[in-house]
């Protein structure tokens, strides 16, 4: 709880403090307005113009034309579908796997510190590097994955994991799961370690089956941390760019909304359509954020008190 709320009649000292507070906040706010507020407003505006990348200054207003182009573009809808599918599947897999890993690492065993450190390795590796590493392991001719699967007799001939349109998105999902499950596992592990012991002792005395204990005791106890972790991961997944751009470049089979927007903006120099696509992605993320805050009753202002 915040303990030094200002008294009803503000003393000169309090007023001086409030003035100082604003002076302390202003530089940060000015920078944030410059690098976040202004570019966002410009992007929204450019989405209603025929702007080209070179010379965005002489853009003229074209109303909803860019949005009409998007609605009629199959590639855009493919990108929307890919983004949603990627988000749902990868976050679901990461949650289940992350929870499983967290439960294992919560058990006491010698060398637990080392195991936890090992789990942090994928998180520490830059996304670009992990995309390249997996691109090499998934290589159709010389890759380790094909070699191992052929050796085990699971496939009859090498598979083009990142080039086959039916498999490429699954390859992207697999790499993302490898890269971000540790983050999930560690957040959940932190929550698991704050569980009160008493609930479990009571359950053990009553001889309740461990699976029942998991669903009736463990899950409800870590629910708040679980919801936050899932929301954060989902927000991250919706804006995915690096991994897809490096693993499969501009392939339509895996293109996300971010990749589409950047391709329009930079490769096709069409700042109008690119900005409109970026604005739509922003709206999707904003709506998702508002819905989860309301549905999960995530009290964000809790942190502000």
């Amino acid at each position, binding site marked *: 709880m915040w303990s030094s709320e200002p008294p009803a009649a503000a003393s000169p000292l309090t007023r001086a403090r409030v003035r100082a507070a604003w002076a302390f906040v202003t*530089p*940060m706010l000015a920078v944030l307005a410059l690098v976040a507020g202004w570019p966002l407003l*410009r992007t929204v505006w450019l989405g209603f113009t025929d702007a080209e990348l070179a010379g965005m200054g002489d853009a003229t207003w074209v109303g909803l034309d860019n949005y009409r182009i998007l609605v009629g573009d199959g590639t855009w809808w493919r990108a929307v579908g890919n983004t949603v599918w990627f988000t749902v599947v990868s976050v679901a897999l990461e949650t289940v796997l992350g929870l499983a890993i967290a439960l*294992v690492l919560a058990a006491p065993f010698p060398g637990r510190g080392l195991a936890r450190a090992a789990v942090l390795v994928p998180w520490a590796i*830059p996304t670009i590097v992990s995309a390249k590493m997996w691109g090499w392991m998934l290589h159709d001719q010389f890759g380790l994955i094909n070699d191992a699967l052929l050796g085990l007799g699971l496939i009859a001939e090498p598979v083009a994991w990142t080039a086959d349109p039916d498999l490429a998105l699954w390859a992207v999902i697999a790499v993302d799961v490898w890269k971000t499950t540790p983050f999930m596992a560690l957040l959940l592990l932190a929550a698991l370690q704050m569980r009160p012991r008493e609930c479990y002792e009571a359950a053990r005395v009553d001889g309740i089956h461990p699976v029942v204990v998991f669903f009736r005791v463990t899950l409800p106890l870590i629910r708040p941390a679980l919801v936050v972790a899932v929301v954060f991961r989902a927000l991250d997944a919706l804006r995915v760019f690096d991994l897809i751009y490096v693993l499969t470049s501009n392939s339509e089979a895996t293109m996300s909304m971010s990749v589409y927007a950047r391709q329009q903006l930079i490769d096709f120099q069409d700042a109008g359509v690119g900005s409109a696509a970026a604005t739509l992605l922003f709206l999707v993320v904003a709506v998702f954020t508002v819905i989860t805050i309301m549905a999960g009753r995530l009290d964000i202002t809790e942190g502000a008190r």
Partner: protein
Amino acid sequence: MRRTAARLGLWLLVAAIVVFAVFPFYYAVVTSLKTGSGLFRVDYWPIDATLANYLAVFREQPFGRNILNSMGVAALTVAVSLALALAAAYACARVAFRGRGLLLMSILSVSMFPQVAVLSGMFELIRGLGLYNSLPGLALSYMIFTLPFTVWVLTTFMRELPKELEEAAIVDGAGPWTVVTRVFLPLLAPALAATGLLAFIAAWNEFLFALTFTLSNEQRTVPVAIALMSGASRHELPWGNIMAASVIVTVPLIALVLVFQRRIVAGLAAGAVKG
């Protein structure tokens, strides 16, 4: 008997988790030590290990320069965001002023921005300021994701500090500036280190802005340099060089993360769970 079986099962699970986490990086190291036709053969441990790729990376392209660029941009980003965030966090954590809740909400909502959502506006801004294809331009754009995060985490940490310290300093006639720099700063050193480290890693790894706002190989940061590495022919990538470069930039990160493991988890938890 059952206990031994359970113990064995736990060990197998742990081993599987560790292999799953570490093997891809191990395989990158093995690949980085191979050249020529060795690259086209799958080996599970180094055979005929050579450091040729590590030398080639620096000889065939300005990779040393790319590393310095990444360090410079990340250091500048961290220094400026920590300075701005420390001042702002003091105000947000210790002073009850009108609009504080709204302020923290807007800072948090900025951290949800997809980077692409500001890409065209940021491109125009960077060009307008004459910072296109320059390192300060990159550092400026990185503020969009380091500032909200550092303000948020430092506010969380600063709220925990005892009120008496500040009151004693005020009684002694210290102004807010003195309170922050002389009283709080030393106490916050561990928090600043953890926050700074996370911001450094975020800036070091950033790809989209670095790809879009730089043009020449000499101005590129490490992730862009690795992503755009190409060989003599367009169709065959120099995998040995790419893996060597990947290992070079990843080893320091892994070392940092292992050393600061506890603090990083605490920082992530403060940033995420309380958000």
